[in-house]
């Protein structure tokens, strides 16, 4: 009885170790895939950020800013005669 029990325990322990090992590998692969998915998402977000930044640079085009300032805000370029440096107190 003791011998049979020992053999059964031995085999079942090994089977459970094998199962745990496979489970560990599966978890590892699962986590690795999740990490890769996140990396891809990060790359996509970075890419979108770059696109938005480029849009911003395009909007900051000095020529367009000047045209907007002159046409929409009725601003005019200043000349030296209009400027005076005030002395500090």
């Amino acid at each position: 009885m003791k011998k049979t029990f020992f053999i059964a325990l031995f085999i079942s322990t090994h089977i459970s170790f094998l199962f745990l090992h496979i489970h560990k590998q599966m978890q590892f692969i699962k986590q690795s895939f999740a990490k890769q998915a996140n990396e891809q998402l990060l790359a996509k977000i970075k890419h979108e950020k770059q696109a938005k930044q480029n849009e911003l640079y395009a909007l900051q085009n000095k020529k367009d800013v000047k045209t907007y300032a002159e046409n929409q805000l009725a601003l005019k370029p200043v000349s030296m005669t209009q400027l005076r440096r005030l002395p500090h107190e």
Partner: protein
Amino acid sequence: MSSRTIATRSAVIFFIGIGCYAILWCNLFVIQLLNSSFFASLGTNQYRITMTKLPERGPIVDRTGSAFLATNRSCISAFLIPKNIGNKSIVQNFLKEQFPTAASRLKKNQKASFLYIKRRLTDTELETITSFHNPDIHLLEETNRFYPLPSAAPLIGFTNIDNVGCAGIEQICNEELTGTPLKMLLEKDARSGYFYFHKELQDSGTQSIPIQLTIDSTLQFLVDEELADACKRFHAVEASAIILDPDTGDILSLSSYPYTNPDDPQFDFYHTKQRAATEQYELGSVLKVFAALAALEQNAVKPDELINCQNTKKCTIDGRPITTWTPHGIIPFSDVIAFSNNIGIAQVAKRLGPDIVTHYEKLGFGKKTGIALPAEARGFVNPPDKWSAQSIISLSYGYEISASLLQLAQAFALIAHDGHFVTPRLLLSDPITVSKKPLYRTESIESIKDILQKTTERGTGRRAQLKGFTVMSKTGSANTLVNGVYDHDKNIYTAAAIIQKGSYKRVVVTFVKQADVPNAFASTIAMPVLRRIAEKMVIHERML
């Protein structure tokens, strides 16, 4: 059935079995031993993939570091795998209609593994392809360059379709901007798709390096506006300007007009040229400054020495004809420069002889400045062994010597920096190069500064006056050579100035080419442009 028959049949079955087993073993021997390396590599190739990833091209920023002059943006390219196309006639007809060049390429490469339909598709082209809904046409995302400040285009340059720098900073700094690719070995199976089981770094590569220029993007824009306005007002062919800090050699603005926007798909290659550094021409009277500096250094003349300018517009010196723009009588040498009299400077230059060439070379004419731009002009100074009797006269007022606008700025920076030679720099990472010892005596430099100041106060540089600033200026109008003959209708008008207020110093040089204005001189064409540039510059730099 007899026992003999059974034995025979059993033997036959046994030998068939043995034969099959032997065949199996032979196959195993061939696969496992004879061709083991071949099958192993086949398996590895399917299982392991080498991934090469090129870093994103580095940006180019201005001196503030916050304004981008070149950056990246994504674009879509369309491609085909010709050998796998299902219905070739449908694809061929579509391409013939929308992309004729791709259609002809497909005709020639029916069995190719890859064929671009078009790279960097426009929005309309992308719309056309997506609405076609054909599974044989694939889209690929790539990056290309984006230039937020088009006026800096001749300086920044551009890249080709493969993102390799072809002009300007993009070309000179291509290696730093590109970096080297990262190589990784991925282990994956057929079902893992974009994912991998294991990653092994083979080559970490090098990241691209951002390039920071000495250029001030706002100043560049303001100068460009003035050049555009000048070309429009004077019906000029082209114009160029440089603003330089003579203390450090930093080029704050280097503009050429007209320019072309590299982001425009139909951009004009001719206007990608950076004229200020790559074009050399005879500078004309603006070079009298350096002939005078040489004469003062050699003690060949004193600023107040009276020179007989013969009160005529045309005369001969040693049998050689010489003309000047307006007659002057006996005037001090300082006025010879201030009023730009050719007869007066020619007489003084004769006292210098071949030494004038040594001085021009010492000032940087006839050799490259070493600026980080491709195709920089070397310039030319006619050497004494090739001189004619006219040469010394011509050299004194800027003929038989050609130089770029950058070389002129460099020479003016030497005067502004009290005789120290300043090397212009465009990359902020380059070291500041200023000669330890001055190349000219303090007295010579002070004298020439006084003369240039007089030129602004009452000479040809009157239009450069700037309230609250000391302006030392000089102009030059020169005929251009057309097929070996001077064309009097095609002139280049040059103006150069040192703007100073306390420790604040700037060198501003500009030229306007072939202005269509009657009786024009540099003092009426280039000098007003320079003045407007200077005014915008001091307002922008808050130096009032």
